[in-house]
């Protein structure tokens, strides 16, 4: 396993190097802690249980989208259509739930249908990119246009609300514990299980060196298609969360989230060149983006300057993360 994760040439002999090799998200984790402390200093309430739960319920969608992106980045691919898949699933389940009357059963059916749609989009991407051997960046941009088109066909204008049972559950409590906590725990367990599967090892092997993966008998094309399929499923899960958070349908809701998902993956210590990384890092990366946004607000930045300061902070975090993990790897 360590042979697959290690970058060629990176000396794994030093103690620190070995730690980074095992936990590539360590720099991100340090940044996360620092951001939490800073948030706490400027707004003590922001570290309360309620505030942190709110942070999770707002950013769970981005976390899942970043996880989705991670699986294709493992194999040195990229998916610029994750935001469009999220939008498509969002409008699809809203319309489905509305058609079926908005009962609890309809919500359940719609959720499964949504995951199916995400899976189908992912497989489509996989066949296009890996099967037809198109360049991932441009090919998934083209499929994102198609997915957005289908989303617009299903719901031409945004604003159809979700059934109240849906968002009441997402934002509500179960046995006095916020529902999103259960979701977060469930997601963590699922991610842990997936991380142990052979597919992840294969994806990393393909990303590390496609040619040698092929020569050692790995089904490279099929592995990449599976990676895209997994990515589609997690984009759909992200859509379920964003639907719970915004409680309405919007055919363009995911558009701006695609590049953030890539940024979260990189923040989390996963290399875009493939072969090394972790989903835990991507989750942390998404939280970093969320905490930067809230910190910029808490320190009292004038509203028109907030986006700029956020942009600068994320650029700095991206740079520092890459520099630190490289230095540690040497």
């Amino acid at each position, binding site marked *: 396993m360590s042979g697959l994760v290690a970058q060629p040439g990176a000396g794994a002999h030093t103690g620190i190097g070995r730690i980074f090799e095992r936990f590539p998200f360590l720099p991100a984790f340090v940044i996360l802690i620092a951001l939490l402390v800073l948030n706490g200093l400027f707004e003590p309430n922001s570290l309360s249980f309620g505030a942190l739960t709110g942070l999770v319920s707002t950013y769970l969608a981005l976390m899942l989208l970043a996880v989705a992106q991670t699986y294709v980045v493992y194999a040195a691919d990229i998916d610029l259509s994750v935001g469009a898949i999220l939008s498509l699933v969002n409008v699809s389940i809203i319309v489905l739930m509305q058609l079926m009357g908005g009962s609890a059963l309809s919500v359940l059916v719609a959720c499964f249908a949504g995951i199916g749609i995400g899976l189908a989009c992912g497989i489509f991407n996989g066949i296009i990119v890996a099967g037809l051997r*198109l360049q991932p960046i441009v090919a998934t941009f083209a499929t994102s*246009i198609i997915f957005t088109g*289908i989303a617009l066909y299903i719901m031409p204008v945004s604003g159809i609300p979700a059934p109240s049972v849906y968002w009441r559950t997402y934002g509500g409590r179960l046995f006095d514990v916020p529902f999103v906590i259960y979701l977060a725990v469930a997601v963590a367990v699922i991610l842990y299980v997936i991380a142990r599967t052979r597919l992840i090892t294969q994806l990393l092997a393909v990303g590390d060196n496609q040619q040698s993966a092929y020569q050692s008998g790995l089904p490279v094309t099929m592995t990449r298609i599976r990676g895209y399929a997994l990515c589609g499923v997690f984009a759909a899960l992200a859509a379920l969360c964003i639907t719970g958070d915004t409680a309405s349908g919007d055919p363009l809701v995911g558009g701006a989230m695609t590049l953030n998902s890539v*940024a979260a993956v990189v923040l989390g210590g996963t290399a875009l060149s493939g072969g090394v990384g972790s989903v835990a890092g991507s989750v942390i990366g998404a939280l970093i983006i969320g905490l930067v946004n809230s910190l910029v607000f808490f320190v009292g930045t004038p509203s028109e300057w907030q986006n700029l300061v956020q942009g600068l902070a994320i650029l700095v975090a991206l740079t520092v993360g890459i520099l630190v993990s490289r230095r540690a790897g040497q």
Partner: protein
Amino acid sequence: MSAAEPGIGRTAALSAERLVRQPIIVALALIAALLVAGELLSPGFASGEQILRLLIVAALLGIVAAGQNLVILGGREGIDLSVGGVVSLSAIVAGNIMNGADAGIVPAILACVAIGGLFGLINGVGVTLLRIPPLVMTLGMLGVLQGLLVVVRQGIPSGNAAPALSGFVTQPFLLGLPGIIWLWIGIGAFMAFLLRRTVFGHRIYAIGSNEHAAAMAGVPVRLMRVSLFILSGMFAAIAGICLLGYSGQSFANVGEQYMLPSIIAVVFGGTPLSGGKGGYTGTMAGAVLLVILQSILTTINIDEAGRQIVFGATLLVLMLFYGRGRAMRG
């Protein structure tokens, strides 16, 4: 290539096949086919006036794609996602400097090109000195630029184009063609000269196809790469000024629509994203092809959703004509 010794009879067939595989020939044939299709679908589509309007829109995209082309040619995953932000920023800065007066044109051009060059310089330094992957660096820079746009937009009005600038972009200038078309032709000639006849141009291909060999041969690789990003920022800035002339006023995030299309124009022009081969003449054809395709879809009587689906699907089909990756061999 695998046919090492083609028989004499097969040489002609092979060279014809090679001709058909030339990306620029493919692009020109597709342009002709699309014009015919457009004329059939809506008579008047291929009229001189209409083609002129298409060429103006293509010139705007083509100028952005010139810089994108250089960065991609330089290899090592070279890509510039920040061009859209520079286009938007340049349009708004130019609008405010000239504020409807011809006297402001020269200062506006100088200021915008300097700003574009500055952002290119920062991108280039990040990519070379800090060795941040171009996709990550320019993605982070895009976030900064989007934030900066909010600040700039808050402080100053959107500004107006000078009459001479609008005339340059939209009115006939020489031989019935607007100035922007001549500017684009000039840029095309400049790029062809730069890439084929200068040491600088040859070095771009050298670092794009084998960076180590180029460095051994004494090519200042870092300096080269920084210059490519500076040029990319400058071209995006020029496109922003022209865009202001085209629309008369600058709008929020007008440049965003150029980010990924500029990459697709380069790919359709026969420059693979891996760099090292290709050129700008093909990219010009690629830009025209993209614009005609979009224009045909607006003339067909279908709604926005259908238009997007057809556009995305057509992009995918067109990509099959270009640079598909090689199949894995044992």
